């Protein structure tokens, strides 16, 4: 396994003065590579001083922010329909990709988009052309910057593994298209003999308003040839908890060899929610106080990363 593992951390929730302290905590475990998270990249797009701060910080501490997650949500997703917002959205993504490239990121993970289908009830087929048009615009920039746009599988009708596969396959001719395989999202969608449909989080039922939840087996097998990066986290199978591996019900023994053998993998990423208690996705699996950096590093070593 040669693709690096990038560690996620909620940097945006820290005062600037604590960035070096947290970096040192990771460095003393031998970790120097971090996920360039969406709040960070959004801040860098909006404020040149944040970008400057991050440049100085990475240089001074000898760390890297790579494996970018694009801004996402109702104003940033690939399939947003609003005509007046789309040009601004695309321009922001180009800027974000340029910043990512400057920091050495190889991948730029993007969401197809769930909001307009799940909340506004716009049919999936009406949103697909928007996602295609967005990628047609962005891919030439990605190619020029040497970055791969990684479309992420999620747990709504617009971004199931099949939807993502069908979308990226249309751009086979571009070296700058790929997939971000999200372990937790796939697990959330997967049918298992032990699953009881009534236990799914209510937001899942709301997302699948049209025809009810359609589970999806073998997401990794569907997407494996396109996987360039991964989001690695766990959950109960019923909600998007972003927990530490081994705290949920993913079978890591079965999954990890497959992840390590994705032919196009460039960067792996942890995508843990460090918080404890109740969150938007339900009750976190983290211990009181949340997850520690120690447990994150040790868990991912146990998964086979070194």
């Amino acid at each position, binding site marked *: 396994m040669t693709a690096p593992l990038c560690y996620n951390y909620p940097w945006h929730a820290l005062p600037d003065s604590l960035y*070096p302290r947290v*970096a040192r905590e990771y460095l003393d475990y031998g970790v120097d590579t971090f996920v360039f998270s969406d709040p960070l990249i959004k801040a860098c797009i909006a404020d040149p001083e944040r970008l400057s701060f991050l440049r100085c910080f990475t240089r001074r501490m000898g760390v890297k922010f790579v494996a970018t997650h694009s801004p996402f949500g109702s104003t940033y997703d690939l399939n947003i329909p609003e005509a007046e917002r789309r040009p601004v959205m695309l321009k922001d993504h180009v800027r974000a990709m340029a910043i990512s490239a400057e920091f050495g990121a190889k991948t730029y993970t993007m969401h197809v988009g769930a909001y307009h289908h799940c909340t506004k009830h716009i049919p999936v087929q009406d949103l697909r052309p928007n996602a295609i048009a967005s990628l047609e615009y962005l891919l030439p920039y990605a190619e020029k910057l040497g970055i791969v746009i990684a479309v992420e599988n999620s747990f709504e009708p617009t971004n199931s593994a099949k939807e993502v596969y069908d979308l990226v396959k249309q751009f086979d001719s571009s070296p700058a298209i790929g997939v971000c395989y999200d372990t937790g999202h796939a697990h959330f969608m997967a049918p298992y003999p032990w699953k009881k449909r009534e236990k799914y989080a209510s937001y899942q039922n709301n997302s699948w308003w049209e025809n009810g939840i359609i589970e999806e087996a073998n997401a990794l097998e569907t997407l494996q040839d396109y996987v360039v990066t991964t989001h690695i986290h766990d959950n109960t199978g019923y909600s998007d908890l972003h927990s530490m591996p081994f705290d949920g019900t993913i079978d890591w023994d079965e999954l990890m060899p497959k992840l390590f053998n994705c032919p196009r993998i460039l960067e792996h990423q942890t995508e843990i929610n460090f918080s404890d208690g109740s969150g938007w996705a339900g009750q976190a699996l983290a211990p009181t*106080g949340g997850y*520690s*950096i*120690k447990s994150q590093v040790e868990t991912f070593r146990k998964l086979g990363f070194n």
Partner: protein
Amino acid sequence: MTAPLAFYFNWNTIPDELHPRVIREFLDHGIEDLVFINPVMESVLANPSRKDFYLGLAERMGVRFIGMHSPYGKTFDLSLIEPDRKPLMIQDHVKALETCAEFGSKTYTMHLGTYPYAAQNVKLEQLREHIVEALEKLLPEAERLGVVIAIENGFSANDSAEELLYYINHFNHPYLGVCYDTGHAHIVTPYPWKKREKYHPHVINNWIEPAFQECPNSIDLLQPHIVTCHIHDNSGYADQHGMPFDGTLPWEDLMPKLFNCPRMLEYQTEVSYTEGKIWCGEALSNRGGYSINHHVQVFRKLGFSW
């Protein structure tokens, strides 16, 4: 060695919402005992709701805040001479002792205080009268609350090992003991390699009459009376509060003695996490400061276990 080791952390430099996260970092190393540092004590004296915050935090996270350090400086030290401030100073320390008892701390470390001697020209004999007067008022309260007042050795004329012994012998009180500060003792210890011109001015300037005097055997003089200790390192010339093994203290000589103090109640780390330039020179820590991981590993190396 059965007395617990409490770990120092500069709680006053992090927002409240990050306290659980930092505590979890310590807990995942098996550490449940944390030092109640003097800025926190000062904040509790100024605002009782801060005590509730820390009590709630300790209960929720299953940790103890012990090894309490009194507020110090010219308005809090035992040597305070201003008659208007004195009763208030005593009152503050009584409240602080009550806080110690409430948190389960067995010791309350106090500074004798150098300010009147070094800055106000008060002679040592006169200073002793003020300190004795203050301790006469505080010791009954300490006894009532079951907390031992631990007077700390410094690197000045008025808080040398011999001065501390004056008060220990004067009172011969079960609720008066010594906080042995390893770094302070190291500064005043003569070694063949030391050059007097290399002492930081803050050391030399705190000796007026008599002039700066080294003390070769602070630990041997104070050992029978040590109830707690502050463990840190330095270059031998300045009060850097570095990590053990980053300075020049001979730990292999010292630790067996520290582990054999007959009255020991609580050990404390007192390592400054700060990097770069500090008040007494250049910190010994790595870029970004010391990590919790490194802190824990070093104290295991010193012989502590938990």
